[in-house]
């Protein structure tokens, strides 16, 4: 069995409850941290671990912590990002639902390291039953003395609360999340100032993903050096992958970084291969915002190397022939999927979720959705592909927050790798009228109609 850090205890009956979690070594990191370590020593361990943020951007966690402004003397906050709304991603929910105390333990140990006395878990409103699970778990932690005043008799005090959103993907962006936590619309802020200097209520704030924070107890218990031994190169530790699409066993898996994409998709331990053993057509390895990979670039890179489940290997080849680890939202497509339809589906998502502050994003996402819909339903013209390319290029890099880029990249990658499919939709409009067109007749068998 592969190394597990987050899900090693997931099969213990009752691990959801405080008692069972505690009996199985839970909250040990809080004891160790508060009784034997200084806050800075914990930050050093996290730095040594090489842990990279699991929310999507992969920014080194210890480094981020070291930016928090301790000089101003203002109250500091840790905010856990449990907004999880990136299509293809459902791992944080799994952790919170099945082992809620792990996140709470991580929040306490991490808040101690940051010198935060008031911290929040921001969870998307749709996960209402998970919100209730976390709320109850926090009450249990208070009752057992892990939260509140003078934890373990020390002079460290922490209040922790869970806060719910109300249906807005953009609130996963850290500054929008802070606005939302302040009771406002989720409009991202212009950076700088960064949250580490001016975040929640103008106070220094660190925002970290659920999975990132859940790794901290293990690092404190076992040391950053031990953590860095797991994984491969600069991709240290394990990663939760949310696997979905045309695979036999969709679900959440904890992998050691460094296994091959082939093993992840085809082994019994993980996805179990393709449904009905149909051929693989495409892969989105890191959530809807990252570039889609065509079949020939999934198992091997353009250089012919094995494609590995690491930050480096997934992005090997840049945007021309690679993709990104992102949030680990791993979506697998077989030959019945229509890439144009899927790209339109994502464009619709981004158009719906744009907060509307920047014109390139607000207008551009809407135009992309319309043009893609036109192509998908057989009303496209030969200029539309270039028009799409032009729109996405004008969004990228021209907006306040990265949602604009996240909307542009999937369109660019789809055109780059699947241009023939777009052309087919334009040349044979009558053949794409039925929304299941490639279920009835996979593109692979009719491709010759548009390729030279």
């Amino acid at each position: 069995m592969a190394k597990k850090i987050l899900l090693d205890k997931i099969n213990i009956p009752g691990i959801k409850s405080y008692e069972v979690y505690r009996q199985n070594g839970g909250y040990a990191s809080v004891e160790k941290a508060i009784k034997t370590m200084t806050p800075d020593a914990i930050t050093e361990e996290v730095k040594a671990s090489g842990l990279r943020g699991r929310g999507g951007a992969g920014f080194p966690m210890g480094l981020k912590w070291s930016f928090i402004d301790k000089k101003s003397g203002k109250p500091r906050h840790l905010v856990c990002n449990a907004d999880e709304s990136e299509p293809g991603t459902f791992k944080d929910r799994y952790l919170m639902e099945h082992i809620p105390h792990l996140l709470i333990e991580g929040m306490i140990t991490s808040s101690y390291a940051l010198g935060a006395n008031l911290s929040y878990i921001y969870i998307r409103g749709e996960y209402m039953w998970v919100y209730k699970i976390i709320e109850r778990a926090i009450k249990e932690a208070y009752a057992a003395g892990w939260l509140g005043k003078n934890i373990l008799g020390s002079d460290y005090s922490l209040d922790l609360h869970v806060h719910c959103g109300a249906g807005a993907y953009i609130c996963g962006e850290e500054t929008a999340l802070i606005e939302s936590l302040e009771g406002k619309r989720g409009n991202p802020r212009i950076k700088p100032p960064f949250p580490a200097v001016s975040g929640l209520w103008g106070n220094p704030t660190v925002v970290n993903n659920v999975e990132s924070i859940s790794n901290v107890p293990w690092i404190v218990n076992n040391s950053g050096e031990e953590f860095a031994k797991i994984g491969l190169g600069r991709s240290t530790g394990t990663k939760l992958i949310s696997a979905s699409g045309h695979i036999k066993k969709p679900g959440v898996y904890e992998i050691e970084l460094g296994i091959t994409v082939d093993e992840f998709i085809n082994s019994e331990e993980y996805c179990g291969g393709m449904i009905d053993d149909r051929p693989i057509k495409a892969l989105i390895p890191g959530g809807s915002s990252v570039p889609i990979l065509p079949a020939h670039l999934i198992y091997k890179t353009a250089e012919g190397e094995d494609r590995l489940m690491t930050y480096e290997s997934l992005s090997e080849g840049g945007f021309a022939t690679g993709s990104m680890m992102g949030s680990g939202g791993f979506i697998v497509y077989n030959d019945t999927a229509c890439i144009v339809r899927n790209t339109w589906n994502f464009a619709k998502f981004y158009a719906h979720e744009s907060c509307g502050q920047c014109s390139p994003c607000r207008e551009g996402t809407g135009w992309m959705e319309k043009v893609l819909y036109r192509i998908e339903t057989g009303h496209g013209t030969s200029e539309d592909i270039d028009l799409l390319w032009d729109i996405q290029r004008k969004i990228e890099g021209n907006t306040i927050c990265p949602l604009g880029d996240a909307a542009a990249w999937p369109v660019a990658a789809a055109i780059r790798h699947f241009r023939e499919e777009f052309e087919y939709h334009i040349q044979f409009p009558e053949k794409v009228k039925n929304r299941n067109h490639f279920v009835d007749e996979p593109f692979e068998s009719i491709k010759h109609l548009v390729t030279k």
Partner: protein
Amino acid sequence: MENKNYTQVINITPELKSRIDELISHYPADKRKSALLPVLHEVQDAHDNWLSADLMAKVAEILEITPIEVFEVVTFYTMYNQKPMGKYMFEFCLTSCCSLRGAEDMLEYACEKLGIQPGGTTEDGMFSVVGVQCLGACGYAPMMQLGDFYKEHLTPAQIDQIIEDCKAGKIILHDK
């Protein structure tokens, strides 16, 4: 505003008030506004799943902010309804993975079964069917949200069953 035509009886029961006070206590005393999103969820759940202008004004009064501050939030977030919706609101995720696994078929099936259009509500006010964006259940597609819970791995037979259970009052909507 559309909701002009509808009236809503506002009733902040003592239980609701104490829950609101508990939520407000999660934020510093001078940051009551921060409780707005959680408070709106509670208030909406207790008022037939929608928020009238009068109810928003009431929330503003409780949080000591202006009504416009509530209104601008209600209009930003999709989970707040500004008009009455069915008691049982079927929210089908239509984003990528769900769509790949037949989400549109499920939504259409439910609509046909209930005799309504997507976005519509049955005349008796019992059911609404809407399509929504990714709910974070991609591995368990197709699926829908019903109250505080998810119904996953949907099939037409299961949708029939859920409709029956709703009619029989067997579905728990909120985890209070």
